[in-house]
């Protein structure tokens, strides 16, 4: 039987996105309904695909049923299925936040761009073809340009131009890397390329190694590993809250691509050796230090979240850089955790900023509305992000520390992880005390407060979008409870990861073992193709 389910995570958003633009462009209510349905469908399909992949085989979908190295394939292994599930969960929850906070009303086409973004991300996780990976990267990037500048404003647009420029340069580099690899191996199918690389003689592989390093640079740009992280702080800090939360999975696409390529195509026993992966550990350590120092030093709340995201990438890559089963297991656990935690942090930051009249600077202001609930959410999120017990950040760091115990760099790694954890703890403590604790010391003066005070009574917020209507800044969120629920949902994910840490790490270990057996992929993609024409 041809596993047609595999194409669904790409196809569902690809159909719904244009439909929303063509038929529902003026009706926000319909867009919301179909947007949530689309995200839910991808989530359901992701669950189904996880069940399919749990057996341990690599399921291959041949587009048009053409045989493998010539036709394009999608391949589903445990890692791809898990990433799809993570994307689905994040997409549904954060989209609900976007609706609840009213962000989707501040510009056009929020939900259809959301669909295109999901299509690109899901495709990048599933594809078994290197050039197709480039195409899906471009799809997710184009959608992210639209989402990042959603709502407009000079600062956001200017940050958007920087983001686009940086990523266009990255895309050019990606093409250069792919061209080099094609010139050497003569194929773009990942499994086929892997097999040819494995058969290559070491003396004539200078170009191949150049291609591998170029590819590593490209993925490091997407993952925002120092020194290629410069696009991240101003992009994430200026993006709308829910969009920044969805972007938490986008940097993980870079990490995923690193894992995929450097376990399957260029494993450490191939002719490429560890020339590219040797760069990862030092870069990751510096990424972690720089991110946490940014958390401590920043004066803006949104940048605090952005630097926390950079730091989490650093922690994650420290573990991934070992490319053994233990390191990958710990890294994958931390990847799940940090995606949920970073998304929750961006949403909480957005909750705070929305209640301070859009003021995201870290400074004392009168107490905000719902201060108890928001500060509690900030507190729990900070615990998750910093990595204190009892949430999954603590377990993740513990796993990473255990996995790196035999590393020759163990002293440096442990020192950096532990010291930077303290730094970020201080940073978050400082932010929380400025925002919530000291807030009560200020008397609410009428002019000093753009948020409280007299608020014009509004009718129900309309859901029809008129073409000549100026884009409104709706300061009343449509359904605040939905926004709180979304943050709570993400944090519940972190709690669940702690409670089910045992079975989860067991499953992740199977996943890491599957990743370290490239022969499995060769066989599934290249050998077992009876049905192909």
């Amino acid at each position: 039987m041809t596993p047609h389910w595999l194409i669904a995570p790409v196809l569902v958003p690809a159909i719904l996105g244009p439909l929303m633009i063509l038929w529902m462009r003026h009706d926000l209510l319909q867009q919301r309904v179909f947007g949530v349905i689309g995200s839910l469908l991808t989530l359901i399909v992701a669950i189904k695909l996880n069940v399919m992949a749990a057996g341990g085989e690599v399921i291959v979908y041949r587009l048009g049923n053409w045989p493998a190295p010539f036709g394009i394939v999608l391949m589903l292994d445990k890692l791809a299925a898990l990433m799809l599930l993570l994307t689905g969960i994040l997409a549904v929850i954060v989209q609900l936040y976007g609706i609840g906070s009213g962000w989707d009303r501040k510009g056009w086409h929020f939900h259809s761009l959301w669909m295109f973004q999901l299509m690109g991300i899901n495709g990048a996780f599933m594809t078994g073809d290197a050039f197709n990976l480039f195409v899906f990267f471009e799809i997710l990037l184009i959608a992210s340009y639209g989402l990042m500048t959603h709502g407009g404003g000079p600062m956001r647009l200017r940050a958007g131009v920087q983001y686009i420029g940086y990523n266009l340069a990255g895309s050019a580099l990606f093409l250069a890397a792919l061209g080099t690899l094609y010139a050497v191996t003569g194929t773009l199918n990942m499994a086929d390329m892997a097999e040819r690389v494995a058969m290559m003689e070491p003396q004539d592989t200078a170009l191949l190694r150049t291609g591998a390093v170029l590819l590593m640079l490209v993925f490091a740009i997407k993952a925002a590993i120092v020194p290629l992280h410069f696009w991240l702080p101003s992009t994430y800090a200026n993006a709308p809250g829910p969009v920044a939360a969805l972007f938490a999975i986008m940097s993980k696409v870079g990490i995923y691509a690193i894992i995929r390529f450097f376990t399957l195509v260029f494993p450490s026993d191939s002719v490429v050796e560890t020339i590219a992966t040797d760069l990862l550990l030092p870069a990751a350590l510096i990424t972690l230090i720089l991110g946490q120092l940014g958390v401590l030093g920043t004066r803006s709340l949104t940048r605090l979240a952005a630097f926390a995201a950079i730091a989490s990438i650093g922690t994650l890559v420290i573990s991934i850089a070992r490319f053994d089963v233990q390191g990958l297991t710990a890294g994958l656990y931390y990847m799940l955790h940090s995606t949920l935690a970073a998304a929750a942090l961006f949403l909480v930051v957005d909750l705070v900023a929305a209640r301070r009249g859009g003021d995201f600077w870290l400074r004392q202001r009168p107490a905000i509305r719902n201060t108890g609930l928001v500060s509690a959410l900030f507190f729990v999120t900070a615990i998750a992000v910093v990595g204190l017990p009892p949430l999954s950040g603590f377990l993740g760091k513990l796993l990473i520390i255990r996995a790196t115990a035999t590393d020759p760099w163990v002293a440096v790694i442990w020192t950096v992880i532990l010291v930077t954890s303290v730094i970020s703890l201080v940073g978050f403590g400082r932010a929380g005390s400025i925002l919530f604790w000291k807030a009560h010391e200020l008397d609410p003066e009428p002019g000093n407060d753009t948020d409280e005070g007299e608020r014009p009574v509004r009718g129900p917020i309309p859901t029809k979008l008129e073409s000549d209507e100026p884009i409104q800044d709706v300061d009343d969120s449509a359904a605040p409870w939905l926004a709180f629920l979304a943050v709570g949902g993400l944090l519940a994910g972190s709690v669940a990861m702690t409670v089910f840490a045992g079975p989860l790490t067991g499953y992740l270990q199977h996943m890491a073992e599957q990743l370290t057996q490239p022969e499995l992929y060769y066989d599934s993609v290249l050998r077992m193709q009876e049905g192909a024409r």
Partner: protein
Amino acid sequence: MELLVASGIGACMAAGIYLILRLRTFAVVLGMTMITYAINTFLFATGRLVVNLPPILHDGDAAAYTDPLPQALVLTAIVISFGMTAVVVMMSLGAFIEGGDDHINMPPDDREMPPLKTVNDQPEEERA
């Protein structure tokens, strides 16, 4: 021919890199276009440079044939980069119209905390 193509790609790329390091959006857009040209030519050349040969196997003669795959890839790359250039032009225009200038760097407001508005900042009539 190899030398000519290689130096052409190199010169284009060098000009592109110089231009995208400028601090105005117009230069950056131009630089992006130059880099795109260089990369597309490079991609085209990854199937080896040959002259006057069809991209179709004819009579099973593998010597009289050029690799068709890079041509398909370059077509995709051209379409994507064309679309991307349009996006970056629109976005630069948007930033120029909203922000008033075409600088790449973030304005000082991005780094400096603006002072809180106080009662004294309001116009006289509103204060009353």
